[in-house]
């Protein structure tokens, strides 16, 4: 009864709404619009991106300019977020820091999600030996602590921003591969995949058009969490001198640099930490909403 109720639920509307043909993306946007939390999350992300782009205009000080007379100042009107142990303006540094942090976060997750997703989908779709091989490789990657793996990769490739992103991306890759493979396994067994083969679709097409779109939900959830982790991993690498080199402002390294002064100047760690939290929260809320609106079944 219940399921019947659901499957009939939108029939009534189709008499009216069915007249016009609309693109699927328009539908996604229409559904997303109704989700207020997701819109707030999206707004915050857009704002952060704007801040990162407009950092030079918005900041009152050069983020790298030291001022030994104004070391470790509390937040005040002239320095809204205080100054660090070199007398650099924290507000400017946090704003500039968003550039590197967001960049690293998004690109690293992009690398992890795309390659991990494809590997997972291929493994899940073909199964058998290929799947076994891919997943055992992923297990090996998973067995090495993420940070050590990233250190090893940066160590091998050399220190640079690009290599940092690759390293963080690769260290996250197995997680995407695993979640995507799990859903690919269930999707593979559905008759619509057989139907696609019956009409002569090649494997690549099936993976791209049928398998991956139906694995979207776990990829999105994993990605929104992954961005935060990528920022932190990048920070840890920077802290070890393998990522972004000081004095370039970057949230993670600012966070860890502030640790030494946690008692005298807790705001040194607090504000970069807060910035990371805001990004993570906004991405999570937005990711949830996006996942729901990408699923036609949840359309209201």
């Amino acid at each position, binding site marked *: 009864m219940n399921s019947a109720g*659901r*499957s*009939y639920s*939108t*029939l009534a509307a*189709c008499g009216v709404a*069915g*007249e016009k*043909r*609309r693109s*699927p993306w328009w*539908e996604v946007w229409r559904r997303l619009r109704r989700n207020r939390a997701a819109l707030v999350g999206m707004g915050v992300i857009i704002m952060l991106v704007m801040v990162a782009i407009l950092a030079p205009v918005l900041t009152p000080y050069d983020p790298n300019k030291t001022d030994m007379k104004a070391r470790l100042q509390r937040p005040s009107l002239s320095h809204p977020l205080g100054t660090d142990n070199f007398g650099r303006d924290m507000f400017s540094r946090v704003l500039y820091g968003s550039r590197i942090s967001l960049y690293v976060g998004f690109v690293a997750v992009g690398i992890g999600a795309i390659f991990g997703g494809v590997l997972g989908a291929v493994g899940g779709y073909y199964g058998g030996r290929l799947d076994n091989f891919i997943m055992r490789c992923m297990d090996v990657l998973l067995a090495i602590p993420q940070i050590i793996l990233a250190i090893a990769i940066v160590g091998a490739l050399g220190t640079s921003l690009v290599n940092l992103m690759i390293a963080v991306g690769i260290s996250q890759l197995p997680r995407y591969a695993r979640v995507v493979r799990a859903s690919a396994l269930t999707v593979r067994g*559905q*008759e*619509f995949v*057989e*139907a*696609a*083969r*019956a*009409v*002569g*679709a090649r494997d690549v*097409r099936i993976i791209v058009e*049928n398998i991956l*779109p*139906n694995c*979207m939900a776990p990829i999105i959830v994993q990605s929104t969490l992954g961005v935060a982790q990528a920022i932190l991993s990048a920070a840890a690498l920077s802290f070890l001198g393998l990522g972004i080199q000081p004095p370039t402002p970057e949230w993670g390294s600012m966070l860890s640099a502030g640790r030494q002064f946690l008692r005298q100047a807790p705001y040194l760690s607090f504000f970069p930490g807060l910035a990371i939290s805001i990004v993570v929260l906004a991405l999570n809320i937005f990711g949830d909403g996006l996942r729901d609106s*990408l*699923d*036609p*079944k949840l*359309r209201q």
Partner: protein
Amino acid sequence: MPELVKAENLVKHFPVAAGRVHAVDDVSFSIMEGETLGLVGESGCGKSTTGRLLVRLIEATSGRILYRGRDIASMNGRELRQARRQVQIIFQDPFSSLDPRKCIGETIGKPLEIFGVGSGREREGMVDVLMEKVGLSPRLYYKYPHELDGGRRQRVGIARALSLSPDFIVCDEPVSSLDVSIQAQILNLLQELQEREKLTYLFVSHDLSVVKHISNRIAVMYLGKIVESASSPDLFHDTLHPYSQALLAAVPIPKLNRRRERIILEGGVPSPIAPPPGCRFHTRCPQRMDICASEEPRLVDAGGGHLVACHRVFGA
């Protein structure tokens, strides 16, 4: 009528941990152009596997599948793709056979896109025509599968199968998950389409009354083998194999006082991993003889093209 599809000694074994599942074991039959062959049997008898073998969704362990005299089973990638335009399949479950993330217009037009038929705009027009052909309003183009009821989903599945104008369609239990009143609509649609589009069907089902209604000829399967095959009236009036008789007697008929003689079979179907020796039905057969446990009966013509595999019939 010329022969359109011919299966010769089809065998499909699935390897499993405990051995090999004998899903289809040496099955042969042929289907004439324009006719409907009904393949009936209980779950696990191999009827769906046979259907999938014919469209090569799964690879046969051995045997030949001749379509207009050419062997589908040995075709390579390119030939097979071309053959797919003529040989299509309609699935049982209208819920899982449609991609939930694609609107139905896209699903119906996909085969056209794959074969590069027409431009995007032209294809949309063709999809509209196809939708009308199966009794769907083209207004539903941008609806998603979950927004439609089972009957209309199944129409989408039929439209997709028709999109490349095939000659032969395997219907794998196309109505068994539908409500009776909707089931009748789909059966009538399939028959109309068969006439209009000159289609040939292999109709796989567990429902004897449906199979009888739609088929010209019927083959009964049990544990991977065809035990009896005959024209539809022959099979029902002159049922020869004890399994077919039991199957027929077990169908509940919605009429008063139509209590026929009941043949209640003992036990369940044996495991297809280790099918019984001799006649596979002998463990449950109410008429078994000594020979049945040791020697396998061959499918022999009992007269007028009525094939049966039973020692009792030939008094061996």
